[in-house]
């Protein structure tokens, strides 16, 4: 039997063209520049889809920190105020206090939020600041190429913990969501992940609850999303979701830590 052969001896009849645009709402057409296997795009897409679903789009303002995800500040069809590394919660506070009718969210990584600007998010929670802070937590400084952050789990190999994070030399990871859940001013605190379809669906429910709580004026809301960083973890792309489940999730436990709307 002779198998058919795709003809390649002549150019195509017409250039390749996009026949339809499946870009989700609130994401501008174009490419993101994250590495293959990165967990951040799914978190960003989920965030803007929830804003759209809740009908909050025309009041939405995002405040971005500095990390790989900063590229999304120009990629979303959402108003964005670009902050310095570590400083998004104070800028978001100024926006929200000056325009209380807006829906304000911050996007920070673990280096940005838990290292550089830790006091910002803690004070925002304590003030019951009516904003939603998002943490994309992959346990490394992804943009600089995989260095230890304050959330790096014990034993994790990074560029400055080559033999793995050792508590006696590098201290212990900060479990930021757990810390914020213990503060009186926080209304909703949850930790999700983007390493599986099930966890993305769960994270979307968390985002929905957080933004709904902000819209209802309940106070400070926080969603941490564990994201894959195969580049910064120095592992194969396909291994990253499993690595997250095996090493990050046992320390930074996935689940809803606090929901005042659900209490009684």
């Amino acid at each position: 039997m002779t198998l058919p052969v795709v003809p390649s001896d002549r150019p195509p009849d017409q250039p390749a063209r996009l026949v339809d645009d499946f870009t989700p709402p609130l994401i501008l057409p174009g490419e993101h520049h994250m590495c293959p296997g990165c967990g951040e795009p799914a978190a960003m897409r989920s965030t803007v889809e929830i804003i759209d679903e809740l009908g909050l789009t025309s009041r939405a303002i995002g405040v971005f920190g500095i990390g790989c995800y900063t590229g999304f500040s120009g990629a979303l069809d959402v108003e964005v105020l670009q902050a310095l590394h570590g400083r998004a919660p104070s800028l978001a506070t100024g926006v929200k206090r000056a325009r209380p009718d807006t829906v304000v969210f911050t996007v920070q990584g673990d280096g940005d939020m838990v290292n550089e600007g830790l006091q910002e998010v803690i004070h925002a929670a304590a003030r019951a600041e009516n904003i939603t802070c998002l943490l994309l937590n992959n346990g490394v400084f992804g943009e600089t190429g995989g260095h230890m952050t304050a959330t790096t789990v014990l034993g994790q190999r990074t560029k400055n913990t080559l033999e793995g994070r050792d508590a006696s030399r590098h201290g212990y990871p900060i479990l930021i969501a757990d810390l914020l859940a213990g503060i009186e001013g926080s209304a909703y605190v949850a930790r999700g992940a983007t390493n599986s379809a099930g966890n993305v669906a769960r994270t979307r429910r968390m985002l929905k609850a957080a933004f709904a709580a902000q819209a209802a004026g309940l106070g400070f809301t926080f969603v941490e999303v564990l994201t894959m960083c195969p580049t910064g973890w120095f592992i194969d792309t396909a291994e990253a979701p499993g690595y997250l489940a095996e090493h990050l999730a046992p320390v930074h436990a996935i689940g809803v830590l606090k929901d005042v709307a659900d209490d009684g």
Partner: protein
Amino acid sequence: MEGSEAIAEAMVAAGCRFFSGYPMTPFTEVLEHANRLLPPVGGVCMNAESELEAVGMAWGAAATGTRSATGSVGQGLSLMQESLSEICFAQLPLVVLNMARGQGDYFQATRGGGHGDYRHIVVAPADIAEAVRLIQLAFHLADRWRNPVLFLGDYYLAHVQEAIEVGALDFGPLEAKDWALDGSSSGSGRAKLISPIIPVKRNAPEPVDYGTHLASIGTRVAAMAAQVEPLVETGGLEDAELVVVAYGTPGRYVRYVVGRLRDQGVPVGFVRPVTLWPFPSAAVAAAAEEARAVAVFELNSGQMVDDVRLAVLGRRPVHFIGGISFDSSGFGIAPDLDVDVVSARILSTLDQVRKEPA
């Protein structure tokens, strides 16, 4: 009325509706008065956790088009420098108060301690009436140029009492703030972006890269330098053999001493820069041209003297007659800020320049 209260009242009269700060003397009283005056007019005053958050909050409020201000003393402003450069790159209007201790912050105010190529306009009043006018001008210039304006006060300005009436001043029309964020452009396909890095979204008809953006900021700094009118007060320059340059409260002392010496027939004059950036170089150069020499009185180890030397460009000798002067409080209440001390320094410098070959 005390200077701090007059400044806060003038901010409210100028339409300031957001203020954030962290207590530090002698800035504290401005924060107290803003905290009292803003809520009744629908404004917001935030007790920030640190100077870093104070400037961050003001940055966020400014991005909504709200007239906003923050401040501290020089030490607190050191903490804010990273944000102040970025706010210049993000092209946002903001008024920043430095109720300084002494005059050691001239370089910080006029050069900045932040990164990159940026400048802010700097105004330095010598008394409360001028402070009330200049703080309102600061809001106007900040909006006009979409750039931070620094108001450089001091302990005396904050705490001296003067009879003063505060009314709103009109500096002319401004363009509408069509760049301000309120969420309404989200989902429109043309959502706004305010960023110090790349100022347009990725679907912009004309993409902008980081280098192009920074170069455009450089062009804007040059435009400010050329077009913001340098403000200056001069006196006694006709037939003056020695011209004394001083700013702020020490400028007020120098003005008084020069007047008193001229009454005694001593040929001295003064130049008091009111804007420190842009520096009134032309006025300083013109005054120097008619005199034998220039003296600079400032309460630091010699900072503004650099700008005076740049203005004079070697055509006349420039003498530094100031110095660091603090009492034990550390607030810049200066023993050398004394009519007799200033008078003696001017007279001995005049003697010295008369001995120099012309």
